[in-house]
């Protein structure tokens, strides 16, 4: 019996001692947030993670130009029954991805902002620059959400528990979201660096923040918030950019886009741009983009630059240009490529074929890289150009004074002169606008934004804030009904027929409503 008792005791002792610590097993192949954000390099890495939101499939990578944001300027002729042809379902995957990616970016920003002062030994000024960039990016992400969905859950700190109270957040009124965006951008504007210190428009800088504030204010001043007091603010912010002598238009409109194609930075014109890198192969395959590919000129020749065109332009876009306007045949490709036996030739479209043309703004033939592939491009994509700032200034000024002032004329005419190939600072009767009243100036400005900014992902929001989305879509439908027939035209007809008042906003993704019953759906869906 003694032997037995001893054995039992021995076994039990081994067993009990064994269990003390061996059950404490933590991951060895990942990093714990608790131990991160402890030095300057880690803050930068966390910041890059936020920036990478821009180059996700759902944001500016593959779905860019495929979500109907070009409105009456261009249409997606390859995809049907989805957001791109205004046959929008609340189950649309592109819309869900858009929502998901921006919120993932917001969470990364929230986490960085919460931990940024964890190590106070990192110099305050270094932390502040990071803080400013993170604040701006979060605000910009909310701007993307609020302009497409209306009010959205406004989440400014990262979750700490899995309780429903932390996970299920109702929509905040769109006005409040805009106010938060403005507040954060204002703070950011005092923290981030000057563009000339950074030397390129790839990183958030003071000019980018000022210019973006102008845009946010214009959106608030228009539909659906209609807070007209914001025109004055918009003007102020635009002015702040214009006062910086470093900013001036590139003498050549075309060169602006050739620069994007070749990773050349022009901090005079390009205030903020999304950086794509590489050709889609190798380790950094994810960093390549689809600029000039999804929204470029169809081409199967890799040496010229492979493009799987989703977008075709409308007659409206083409007809908005005067013949002397050099921008027309750059922004809208007057030709198509034909490749036979590995030889690629260009042939011009017949004059009447206005719905067949690809956007030509982002041309892969401009790329000088020798490592072109049929996969991705390294072309950067503009989020804010100086010409946009000038046009925003002119628009705000016209609204404030209810008539065009000399300053407004000067701003818009600078853009036009450059577009016609003239010197931007010398008045020219061919290009310059004059003798307009409030309304006619406004109409010219609305068309000017197409002429200058077509296919830069802004047209639909412009139409919405001006309150002319539906009429403009229907007039394009009328154009499409009388154009020469081809497969793409059927898509144009159905897209412009489908577009209706509900499309000023996208539906809240039905998936999101399923997991967050506190959300409400937008009207019409």
């Amino acid at each position: 019996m003694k032997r037995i008792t001893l054995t039992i005791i021995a076994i039990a002792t081994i067993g009990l001692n064994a269990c003390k610590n061996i059950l404490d097993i933590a991951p060895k192949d990942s990093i714990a947030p608790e131990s991160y954000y402890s030095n300057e390099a880690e803050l930068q890495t966390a910041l890059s993670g936020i920036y990478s939101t821009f180059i996700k499939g759902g944001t500016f990578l593959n779905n860019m130009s495929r979500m109907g944001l070009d409105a009456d300027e261009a249409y997606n002729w390859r995809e049907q029954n989805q957001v791109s042809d205004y046959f929008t379902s609340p189950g649309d995957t592109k819309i869900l991805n858009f929502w998901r990616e921006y919120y993932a970016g917001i969470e990364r920003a929230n986490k960085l902002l919460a931990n940024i002062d964890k190590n106070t030994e990192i110099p305050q000024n270094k932390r502040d620059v990071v803080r400013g960039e993170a604040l701006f990016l979060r605000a910009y992400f909310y701007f993307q959400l609020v302009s497409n969905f209306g009010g959205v859950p406004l989440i400014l700190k990262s979750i700490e528990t899995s309780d429903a109270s932390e996970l299920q957040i109702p929509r905040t009124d769109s006005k409040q979201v805009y106010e938060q965006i403005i507040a954060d951008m204002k703070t950011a504007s005092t923290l981030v660096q000057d563009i000339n210190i950074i030397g390129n428009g790839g990183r958030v800088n003071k000019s980018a923040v000022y210019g973006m504030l102008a845009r946010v204010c214009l959106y608030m001043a228009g539909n659906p918030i209609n807070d007209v007091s914001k025109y004055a603010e918009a003007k102020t912010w635009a002015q702040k950019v214009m006062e910086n002598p470093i900013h001036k238009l590139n003498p050549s409109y075309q060169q602006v886009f050739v620069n994007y194609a070749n990773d050349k930075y022009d901090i005079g014109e390009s205030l903020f741009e999304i950086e794509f890198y590489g050709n889609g192969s190798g380790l950094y395959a994810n960093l390549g983009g689809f600029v000039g590919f999804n929204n470029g000129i169809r081409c199967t020749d890799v040496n010229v630059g492979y493009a799987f065109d989703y977008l075709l332009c409308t007659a409206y876009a083409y007809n908005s240009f005067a013949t002397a306007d050099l921008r027309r045949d750059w922004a809208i490709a007057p030709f198509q490529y034909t490749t036979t036996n590995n030889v690629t030739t260009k042939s011009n479209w017949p004059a009447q074929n206005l719905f067949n043309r690809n956007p030509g703004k982002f041309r892969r033939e401009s790329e000088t890289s020798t490592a072109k592939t049929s996969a991705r491009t390294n072309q950067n994509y503009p989020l804010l150009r100086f010409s946009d700032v000038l046009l925003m200034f002119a628009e705000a000024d016209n609204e404030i004074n209810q008539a065009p002032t000399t300053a407004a004329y000067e701003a818009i005419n600078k853009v036009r002169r450059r577009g016609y190939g003239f010197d931007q600072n010398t008045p020219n009767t061919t290009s310059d606008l004059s003798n307009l009243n409030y309304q006619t100036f406004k109409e010219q400005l609305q068309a000017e934004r197409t002429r200058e900014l077509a296919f830069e992902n802004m047209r639909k929001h412009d139409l919405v804030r001006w309150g002319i989305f539906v009429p403009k879509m229907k007039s394009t439908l009328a154009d499409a009904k009388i154009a020469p027939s081809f497969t793409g035209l059927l898509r144009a007809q159905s897209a412009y027929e489908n577009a209706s008042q509900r499309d000023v906003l996208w539906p809240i993704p039905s998936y999101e409503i399923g997991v967050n019953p506190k959300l409400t759906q937008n009207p019409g869906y």
Partner: protein
Amino acid sequence: MSMNPIAQIFKQGMIIITFLILCTSAYAQNQGGEIKLTVTGNNITLAQAFQQIKKQTGLTVFYNNQLLNDNEKTSIDLKNTSLNVVLNTLLKGKNIAYEIRRDKVIVLNSKPVTAQPKQEDLSVVKGKVMDAETNQTLIGVSVMVKGDRSRSTITDKDGNFSVRVAKSDLLTFSYVGYSPMDMVASNIKNEAIKLSSKSGDLNEIVIIGYGAVNRKDLTGSVAQVKIEDMQKSPVASFDQALAGRIAGVQVSTSEGQPGSVANIVIRGGNSLTQSNTPLYVIDGFPMEDANTLAINPQDIKSISILKDASATAIYGSRGANGVIVIETKDGKVGKTSIAYDANVGTQTVTKRMELMNAYDFVKYQAEFDPVYADQAFLNNGATVESYRNTPTIDWQDKLFRQGLTQNHNLSVNGGNNNTKFSISANISDHQGAIINSGFNRYQGRVFVNHNVNKNLSFNLQANYAKYKSYGDLASSNTSTNQPYASFLLYRVWGYRPLNRNGSTADFEEELIDSDGNDQRFNPIIDYSNSLNERVNENFNTSGNLSYKLSNNFTLRIRGGLNSRRLQEVTFYDSKTSRGTSLLASNTKGVNGGVRYTDYINWVNENTLTYKPRLKNGHSFDAMVGWTIQGDKFNRFGLTSENLPNETLNIYGLEEGTPGANTATMQESMLISYLGRVNYSLKDKYLFTASLRADGSSKFASNNRWSYFPSAAFAWKITNEDFMKNLSFIDDAKLRTSYGLTGNNRIDPYAIFSQMTLPYSAYYSFGDKVSQGITLSSFGNKSLKWETTEQLDIGLDLSLFKQRVNITADWYKKTTKDLLLRANVPYSSGYSTIYKNIGKVGNQGFEFSLSTVNVKGKSFKWESDFNISFNNNKVLALADDETRLLSTVSWGNYGSTNLYIAEIGKPVGQFYGLLFDGLYQVSDFTWQNNSDPSIAHANRTYTLKANVPRNGASTIKPGDIKYVDVNGDGTTNIQDNVVIGRGLPIHTGGFNNNFSYKNFSLNVLFQWSYGNDIMNANRIYLEGNDASRSALNQFATYANRWTYENQSSNIPRAGGQGLSNFYSTRTLEDGSYLRLKTVQLSYNFPTSITKKLKMENLGVYISGQNLYTWTNYSGMDPEVSTRNSTLTPGLDYSSYPQMRMFVFGLKTTF
């Protein structure tokens, strides 16, 4: 490759020989029931006499000095005399009895009071013991003389025994695995004594958790699989053969992909997103992932399925899904037998889909996309009618094939009383019914038991298997660039069925169909050139040491190790969609990758059992123990892109550009303490109680430990006096049990928030790449155990001399603190978070009936019927929620909720819109006050105000229409309702064994009733939901709505409405009855086998999935391509189930 199995067999051959040598030498020592010896000496002490015995026989005589004075002198002169006589002489006149034990000890004890028959009344009886059915002689059968163990003996190598008996002595013959038999000595004639094996009998030994028990003493609900029937199914792994065989155990395969594992759900799924797979205990080694493919079904000796809490609670935190206890074959005492079993056969798909022919296709394109149809087909004067007789390319012809299968088993089996061994090897090769897919396996196994001495014994088993499944997965999205375009069956069905008008190119050989806007790649060329292999090498070994500390205490120590390496190889050359440079979406050129994953599980278990001998009808035993188990996996992988030399295959990976690499690891550990007591009173009232405490590394320290108790009571009614008169009842037992079990199947690091630095989070600043970090998961520190409480009431009944056996059980399970990988709002920045959420109940009834219907001399018919009902209900959800919605991802669908779990209703209910037919012309107004004389084509249709819209912006006659449930004038997700059930109402099986002379026939039917299936294939291929050009459709779509065919219920071309909605249009009844397995076999009579020097020879044909009765329109109703408790019954591009026929041969030497 081919060297490996041969080397394997050779290696095993060597092992066999080694064992044979060991066994023969061990056997020699055990010769002679009658040991002869010589003991002589004048006036020697008894102690000296005992010394002589020891010298000659090795037997030590043990005794207490108070019992015997060993200094007492005696004189003896016995030459070549049997030991019994020697001992009887030495102990003459003393009141002392002796017992010769197997461990070479003779124990002296005071004589029992019962009167000993005088030596002179004894006579020698000889006999032979055989197996009642096979007539094989049985070696080592214990022959006990009741009341005088000293005269007991065992049978020798020829099955013979001789024993000295009085005429009235009662002899008991007992042997492991056989029913004991009592005989009065005078009745033993020259005839052989036949013992029958116990299977199917109330006396069978049932393996339960940490022990074994006689079936009649079971208090819990434990089902035994009839192994012989199961082994008649020609499938590669046992899990696929279990369907329909056991009540309460639902076995289904999600699809037919070779190498896929069956889903086994015992008594309804508790866990919603986490695995509901039962815990497997293989030769004592508990494993959450059984790797069933590593086990040769022919090696299995027994499978017990533990269902209620009394049986499973001893496995504590892992018992909630039920436990499948598998014992593999050990050696048999007796002549070494060699068995070889082989079969060859074919596998084909159970069904093919009918597709639109060339004419229907052109007609459809002309309606759907006239511009395309004009370009491609209707030029140069051709009209739709010109295609009436154009040959159709049915791409299924090129995809499906008759796959060849073969299977070879060789086993060697034998042993003696001290050492038994079993060695086996298996080679299987199953070509899939789809080209370039299949499964093969090389496997070998050794099992040895050895008794070191009377108190110490051990066994050791080792199993090695190398198995490979190959072929891209049909139902997975293999490319993220074109999600909809990469599902195999969708691509095959939808591929354009004819060439363009006037095109001279060989369309069947062309890599890309440029007609579809989405750059479709030829699926046949793609699939046949893709390399996707998953090679597993699995080594599993476990050893058991059992040491008897005293008569009452036994200590068992067990160690086990499972080591598995999974090697995944992919290679896509320029003729595949993922390797071609012709597709813009392909960024990688010719590419490939290799990934290795090493899994290591180990376990140590230590148990102590106490089984005292009690009197007065009490019986008691107890077991306590502790165990520790560790799991770990490492994964390393590399990929390489733009390989310059594709002919080098994966061996050219080093020449390309490096792509993504993988390095990851996980580990977890579990420590447990367990105990169980059994008590039985008068063999009428049985009590069992058990308790297990588990501590797991997966939970934070404050929630780490949990306790899982259970209690059971059984009442053997037949042993009550009042039952004695009901002689037709052989056995009746009422059982009830209650207990708690748990589930810890979550990511081992679910409590930790984690950050990673994937390339996808990088960003370039000023054209310089910079690393970025992401928050990859949110750790929920408050996670705790999922606990299931279960109440079970059962009845076992055996009637009419065991010709009718009934088992019925009712159970109620409640699972609380459900561990759920919950979908959370994306606005949180995460997509899923592990949470404890709510409560789910499962209540059910299961019934099994086994009968011997006919038991004639030459004809016999036995059948087993079982049916089970399970009613699943959500009882509570976290955070006061009332419902939980779930999505599944396929094609472009991935964000629309298809399933709902609502409080008070079952989980896995389908959720969607009610299909309300189509909009008809009468629903619209048009120009000129709806002037009927205007041709349809010229009308501008406007929907009447009172007709609900379908959510789309433009609606025409023939468009899909849904019921506007909330009456707001439009249909959208607010109109979603429960539209069907994903879980069956009842499932079951009906197994029959017929035998006539040397023929036997096994027929198994299996069914599932009441579940629905979302036939998602029809969403794309009977209505073209995504509006893709040049996409072929199912043949049924030829009957779609047109102005000429307005009675059709299938939407017009282009009338499918908004994408990303599910409706009852494509929800179908998934009930089925299947003729699952049939085997017809013939055993050659002994007259022939003797001539061939064989012990046994049989041939058989058998088939699997032979015929299915169902209303389901898809390929096969046994399907669930995104299977979980929350998301059952989706069919999208599933690998079809296969019908199998084999011809086989069975021999034993």
